[in-house]
């Protein structure tokens, strides 16, 4: 079974990925944007969904739902506006959950 990879985020940050053959979806912070993201997750066509940190900030609840699901893998990437550190904090969240406290805190 073959699935695809989606890249989700603001237009400026994601349009380049379309050249590589990934499916790109542009996100606007609105209800439609949230609905689109939900559709992507539920469609089952995507094994991996990359989402920009800025878009992820609006969709925190949606993303949290899929943390413990085996599919899809929702991975945060920095957008064109720069790195907000959200992606790393997602890793930190995993550590905190498993260990009880963030032991890699520098």
């Amino acid at each position, binding site marked *: 079974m073959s699935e695809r990879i989606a890249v989700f985020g603001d237009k400026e940050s994601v349009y380049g990925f379309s050249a590589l053959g990934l499916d790109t979806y542009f996100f606007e912070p609105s209800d439609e944007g949230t609905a689109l993201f939900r559709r992507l997750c539920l469609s089952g066509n995507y094994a991996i969904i990359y989402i920009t940190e800025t878009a992820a900030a609006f969709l925190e609840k949606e993303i949290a739902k899929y943390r*413990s699901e085996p*599919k899809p893998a929702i991975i945060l990437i920095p957008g064109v506006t720069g*790195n907000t550190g959200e992606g790393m904090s997602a890793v930190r969240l995993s550590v905190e*959950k*498993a260990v009880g406290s963030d032991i890699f805190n520098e």
Partner: protein
Amino acid sequence: MAVKQVNPTRMELTRLKKKLNTATRGHKLLKDKRDELMRRFLEMVRENRALRMKVEEKIKAANANFVLAKASMSDETLKTALLAPKQEVYVSTSYRNVMSVEIPVFETQTRTPDENDIYSYGFAFTSADLDDAVKSLSDVLPDLIRLAEIEKSCQLMADEIEKTRRRVNALEHVMIPETQEQIRYITRKLDENERSTQTRLMKVKDMMLQRAHGY
């Protein structure tokens, strides 16, 4: 500790002893599972952090390249250039079992084997910066896939560790002490019963001797 009401019978005692045995064995096994999961998790999370830093750095560079490319081209040209991608990436997901956690393994296939198919445009009307930008992004892709794999694994493992730890704690601090307490209660009760029978018998014997011989 408040003991749950149990019947002080031998049958119940045997049942509880068996239960305690199972609980202790389960506790030991789960503890081992937790420790091993934790070891693997820490290993993986270390790689996850390193990889994430690397990928974020590379994407930042790629984005800078795209900004450059955009600066030297009109919006329309850029749009048309990337409108119809030639390449497509497919992922097939298989699962690997690590300590009962199904972690995903992604394998990617591209539609065409030609790695130059990432350039979905003629080179006449676009700037060379765009080629650089697309190339730099394409170079990140394998790392990005690996990041997805490992980050998802970490999330799933973190979940499983949390669950296992709860179970270990529940066994260690609730189930096992409770059963031990119940066993102790039944043993005491049975002993007490035996003693009371003993005294009753002695008393009866005394009374019988009294009546027969006038002791």
